[in-house]
């Protein structure tokens, strides 16, 4: 499928580049709707791989790239369930999103996240599946999950550790603070730092450059340098599901849902 227009996201293939645009209000929260459409994208990615060299992920929402998991859906969806059923539902969701994220992570195509603004939690994790992150200078990255009594569940910890090492991962995870784009560029998280509103243009220029290379060579180089941390990804799901049964999580989610803040997951 060369083009798709969904409720949460869209994609379009053009000149060997697949552009996936997130556009769900208010800031691309990832719930069952987004997951379903990401799974459709995952199928399309297989179909388009042979005629493509790059993928760009970006957001059309002014607030940012993605604010993370849809915590309202998580809270409301699990409230009516017995605890074991809720955990089963959470595990199923995580298994599905890990499958999609692993597919994009290991794609033979070069993948670029063009980010701006809020890039938090699951949104940060989505950016981390990409080979390169191009960020405008108003971007902020954060793992706020510990505020809810949880850890990031979409593969963010193993991927950040793989890419930047343990100390940076501990800092972001254990303090819950957000890093701005300048710092993120200095530590190597961000590949290119650009002016406000210029991330997508810079990502497109990068994708055009990548198109000059032999795609099989690019794929071999990526496969060599970017292994999936599969064992840690499995462990992450287990830890998340174990933590999810604790009362602190329900209390944290309840506070979140009751908040009247525009983006209540801000640290």
């Amino acid at each position: 499928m060369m083009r798709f227009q969904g409720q949460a996201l869209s994609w379009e293939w053009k000149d060997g580049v697949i552009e996936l645009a997130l556009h769900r209000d208010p800031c691309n929260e990832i719930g069952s709707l987004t997951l379903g459409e990401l799974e459709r994208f995952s199928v399309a990615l297989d179909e388009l791989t042979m005629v493509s060299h790059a993928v760009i992920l970006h957001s059309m929402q002014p607030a940012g790239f993605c604010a993370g998991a849809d915590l309202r859906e998580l809270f409301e969806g699990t409230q009516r369930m017995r605890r074991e059923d809720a955990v089963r539902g959470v595990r199923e969701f995580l298994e599905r999103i890990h499958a999609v994220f692993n597919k994009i992570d290991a794609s033979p195509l070069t993948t670029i996240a063009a980010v701006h603004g809020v890039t938090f939690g699951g949104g940060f994790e989505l950016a981390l599946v990409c080979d390169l992150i191009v960020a405008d200078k108003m971007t902020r990255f954060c793992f706020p999950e510990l505020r809810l009594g949880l850890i990031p569940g979409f593969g963010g910890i193993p991927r950040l550790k793989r890419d930047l090492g343990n100390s940076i991962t501990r800092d972001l995870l254990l303090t819950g603070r957000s890093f701005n784009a300048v710092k993120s560029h200095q530590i190597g998280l961000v590949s290119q730092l650009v002016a406000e509103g210029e991330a997508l243009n810079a990502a497109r220029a990068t994708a055009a450059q990548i198109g000059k290379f032999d795609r099989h060579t690019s794929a071999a180089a990526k496969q060599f340098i970017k292994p999936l941390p599969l064992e840690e990804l499995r462990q992450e799901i287990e830890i998340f599901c174990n933590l999810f049964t604790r009362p602190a999580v329900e209390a944290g989610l309840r506070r979140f849902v009751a908040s009247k803040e525009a983006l209540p997951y801000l640290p």
Partner: protein
Amino acid sequence: MPTIDQTLDEVLALAAVRFKVPREKLSPDDDFFQNLGIDSLQALDLLTRLENHFHVELPDYEMQGVSDFRTLANKIQARL
């Protein structure tokens, strides 16, 4: 290093431009959530602009509870 008064003046000037408020209408002890009518997302935007302007890191947890320009300027000054 700038003085605290210079830092405070730069914070007020930056906030006035960002939120399109006349500079003379902002005072150091103003509650910027109320006076500027900004929400948490806009506060994060202001935080990022201040970090970029002053070349400092302002951890989110140090900003919790900060709602006036004078305290904000003091937090920045402590990291210059």
